[in-house]
């Protein structure tokens, strides 16, 4: 199931790409699976089909999807790329920004720590798989 919020400040195509990427990383979408066509997903989410097409293109450029005209999108077996130092630094910076925003919004540090532990467990589980 993919969920987006049209009231969010994040553009819809970004939310679609992020949501699909999370499902791909968690292997909820397996290699070989077909995704809905651009038009079908656009109808279901109530967004313009260019929005969905942009999200699909972004994931295809990252190596997650194979886009064939008229056949929709197929999930690919994606080899893990070599992580450059910039990618790791960017992740750390974004995580720290996210944590700062969450604390600013009043989320307790205990809750944040619990969420981070859960995420860490899922990451380890994903790596083990």
């Amino acid at each position, binding site marked *: *199931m*993919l*969920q*987006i*919020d*049209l*009231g*969010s400040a994040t553009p819809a195509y970004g939310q679609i790409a992020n949501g*699909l990427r999370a*499902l791909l990383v968690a292997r909820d*979408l397996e290699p070989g699976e*077909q*995704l*809905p*066509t651009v*038009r*079908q*997903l*656009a*109808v*279901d*989410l*109530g*967004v*313009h*089909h260019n929005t969905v097409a942009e999200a699909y293109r972004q994931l295809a450029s990252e190596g997650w999807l194979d886009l064939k005209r008229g056949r*929709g999108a197929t999930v690919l077996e994606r080899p893990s790329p070599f992580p450059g130092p910039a990618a790791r630094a960017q992740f750390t910076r974004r995580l720290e920004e996210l944590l700062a925003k969450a604390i600013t919004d009043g989320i307790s540090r205990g809750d944040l720590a619990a969420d981070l532990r859960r995420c860490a467990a899922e990451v380890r589980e994903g790596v083990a798989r």
Partner: protein
Amino acid sequence: MKALPPMTSTFELTAVTAGILVLVAVLAYLTPGLTRPDLFFAVTVPASFRGTPEARDILRRYRAWVVIHSLIALGLGAGLARINGLAGMLAGIGLQQAGWFLAYYRARRRVTLHATPPTTIREAELRPRTARLPGGWVLQIGPFAALLAAAVYLRSRWADLPERFPVHWGLDGQPDRWATRSLAAVDGPLLIGAVVSASLVVLSWLLLRQSRQIRPGGLAGLAEHRFRHAVLSVLLACEYLLALIFTWTSLVPLSANVATRQGPAQPGEPAVSAPLVLTLLFVVAVAAILIRLGQGGTRLAGATGGRRQPPGAGPVGDRSPDRCWKAGVIYVNPDDPALFVEKRFGLGYTMNFGRPAAWVILALFLLVPLALSVWLVHAGS
């Protein structure tokens, strides 16, 4: 156009009018209770609003108006039918529709004061939807096969068809339009039947591909899927009913006395009441099925855990903005790619008139059968 044989009795017309008025009254009375819990008179409200004294009062007044107007329409229709059957029918139905809309409009205006912003959350299943019509292409072909069979049968009985036969009758039972035996006059009803059935197949396919699921996943999603399947099955049944009626109409000239009779229809002769009554029964059956399901399958046991959606549970609304609903019944949203959306007040789907495709479809559905009918009248006369 080849029309149906005469209405032989004012009593029959009055009975049909009364049947239509009673059916519409029942539907109008029940409709507010059949819609999604968080849509009341086509306005997005918290699901808990229906239980408030204000909502109960709005509903009570609406229903009282529906009953009063329906009774007046019934009296007027029956009274006028003694003088002119068709005028009675039209006046009764017209008055009831006006009264219903007025009752709805007043109720809606009060509910608007309690409106809540619809959710901005959108969800989608990621499994590609199966684009299969009920019964597959085998059942979809059935009506066309029946019409084709009738055409072949008429060809085999060509010599038995009268040279000239009536194709339209006035309410007094007298033929008022005739056609000579020709391909257009004989096969005309079958051609119209085929065009209308083909239109319904296209409509079903578009409904399958171009409508959004409001609650994907879970029991509510399954119920919604069943509702969509039921609507598509109704469209299929409609194709068969139309094929039956048009086939029957095309065979009327074979009736022994239909070509020579000058007076009212004789006993045993096919009468217009047969297809009318059949259609009325069909509408009653369809209404019963859809009422049992509720809009979007919301009345199915288990759809929301065996009860209606509890207050505060799940997103509010049908994932369409209130401002895009004109009078709560016409949806106009150019930013929504869905061509079909669930009706907010009623059962089934309506088109998104913010998309040019909706206007093209509407024009084709109205103009093609009309143009065909006009051509056949001229070709057959």
